[in-house]
């Protein structure tokens, strides 16, 4: 049972109470604008309008504060504060906070209203972000670190993501590091779901689908993507790795399009995973990346057959060339 635009507008006015001066007609029109602009259901349009109103209220409050500060003091304004919050601490909808994040993956926008969409991580957790097309924000690049100021939490389908408004700011922070880690070892396994995969094309869903069936959206026409889920092992511990499309293409030396061709020629999409396995299992690699759940999202990977100086030093520290003192062969315990 869906509510009418009029009912949604009435709800908003009701929610803000009598202290905020809102016109029914104006609110209704804003909701209709959002529906047209973003091609979204009335319920979501209502949420957006509500958030915008909240935001404009808080901006008004800030402006008031600012003018008060200016009146009371002639000293220059201190630099705007950046209060970093962690992604793992997000627990309220429509909350404005600041984040220091690294862009892990950018996805193909599935609607022309979306400017950029993808995954961000800050060492505590990973989440989705969406930048609407109409906002004047810088273009983000994969693997780069950014400061998000006044990013807004958005709860949908019981999952939080970050969105932005006119009051948000994004600045490139190339000198800042989000918790990353590296590992050297042998690629000892490739896991299922590697190679040529299909993802759900629904807005920001990106779930990996099997047999054209998405867990959340049912039967869909999947979009091809390329990735590697691998295990690296240094003899003492193992680490699950994810290579996104870009890293997979770089490590394997073939593109998504070429992978599609391999599958076409073999009449089998699994051939790509087999090719990846043949190519990298058993190879020594140095990888660096960002932690995310049990995975390391690989940002940098290099095959390395050279013997590490550290390994040689370990051996040197336990050997001696003085044979008179170290006749180990003759010593019996």
């Amino acid at each position, binding site marked *: 049972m869906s509510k009418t635009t009029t009912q949604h507008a009435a709800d908003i006015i009701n929610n803000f109470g009598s202290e905020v001066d809102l016109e029914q007609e104006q609110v209704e029109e804003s909701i209709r604008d959002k529906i047209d602009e973003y091609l979204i259901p009335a319920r979501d349009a209502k949420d957006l309008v509500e958030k915008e109103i909240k935001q404009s209220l808080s901006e008004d409050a800030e402006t008031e504060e600012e003018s008060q500060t200016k009146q009371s003091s002639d000293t220059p304004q201190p630099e705007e504060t950046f209060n970093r919050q962690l992604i793992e601490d997000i627990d309220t909808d429509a909350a404005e906070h600041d984040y220091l994040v690294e862009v892990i993956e950018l996805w193909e926008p599935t609607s022309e209203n979306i400017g950029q969409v993808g995954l961000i991580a800050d060492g505590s957790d990973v989440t989705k972000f969406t930048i609407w097309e109409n906002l004047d924000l810088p273009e983000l690049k994969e693997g780069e670190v950014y400061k998000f100021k006044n990013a807004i939490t958005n709860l949908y389908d019981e999952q939080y993501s970050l969105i932005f408004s006119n009051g948000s700011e994004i600045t490139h922070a190339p000198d800042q590091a989000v918790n990353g880690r590296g590992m050297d070892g042998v690629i000892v*396994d490739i*896991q*299922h779901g590697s190679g040529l995969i299909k993802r759900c094309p629904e807005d920001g869903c990106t779930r990996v689908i099997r047999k054209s069936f998405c*867990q959340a959206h049912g039967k869909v026409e999947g979009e091809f993507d390329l990735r590697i889920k691998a295990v690296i092992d240094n003899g003492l511990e193992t680490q699950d790795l994810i290579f996104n499309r870009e890293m997979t293409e770089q490590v394997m030396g073939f593109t998504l399009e070429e992978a599609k061709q391999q599958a076409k020629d073999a009449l089998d999409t699994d051939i790509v995973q087999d090719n990846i*396995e043949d190519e990298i299992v058993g190879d020594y690699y140095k990888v660096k990346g960002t932690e995310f759940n049990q995975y390391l999202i690989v940002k940098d990977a290099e095959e390395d057959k050279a*013997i590490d100086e550290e390994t040689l030093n*370990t051996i040197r520290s336990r050997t001696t060339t003085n*044979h008179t003192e170290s006749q180990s062969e003759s010593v019996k315990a």
Partner: protein
Amino acid sequence: MSNQDNNENGNDNQTDDGPDRNEAVRVFASEFNEAKFTFKKEDKKRAAEYNLLPTGVGANRVLMMGTLMGITHIKTDNGDNYRARIVDNTGTFFAYAGQYSDATEKMSELQPDDSRTNLNQDEFKQVMIIGKAGTYEKDDNEHLVSVEPEHFIITDRDTRKKWRAETVAKTLDRLEAVENGEAPVQNKVDQLSDHFDRDGLRSDINEVIEKMEGVSGTISTNPQNAV
């Protein structure tokens, strides 16, 4: 916050070992072949089994390398099995592919037509075996150690040399720990110390070091032993 769980774990969650995948222990043939005793870390029927290495470490999975000397085709009631004989700097070990797997397929491709053969000198290949350590009983009740390959990889001399250096260093780390009484399964290895020849292992390692570039000399003996 777990929205990405759905993407990465929700519908294609097929890790082979679950969250606690066993590391692949780097071990030379001479140490591996002495690992005839097995133990479990959990008292469950399906709990992982570990082969007790003389250096006081349990090895469920190993990563070993060597020169492939031959592959034997063995017909059993369960189908085609293959046994590879591989030689590293310290001795010989066997990789036994008992069930159908990618490794079995690779081994069958390398298998020449006759049922037992040694490959030509020119055809010597460097192989890496990643797999599960196991023991099997021969007809005369003797227990032998072998590895059941998950991956049977034809590789190259550079990788072999890197593995050799890494395995020397890791073996020395383990030797030091066990001799200081600090090995992960020290009690187990102490109880069975009569069965292990760590001096032999030390001497094997010295021979490996002799062949390596960038290092020289012999390994220092443990002070406790050298008195």
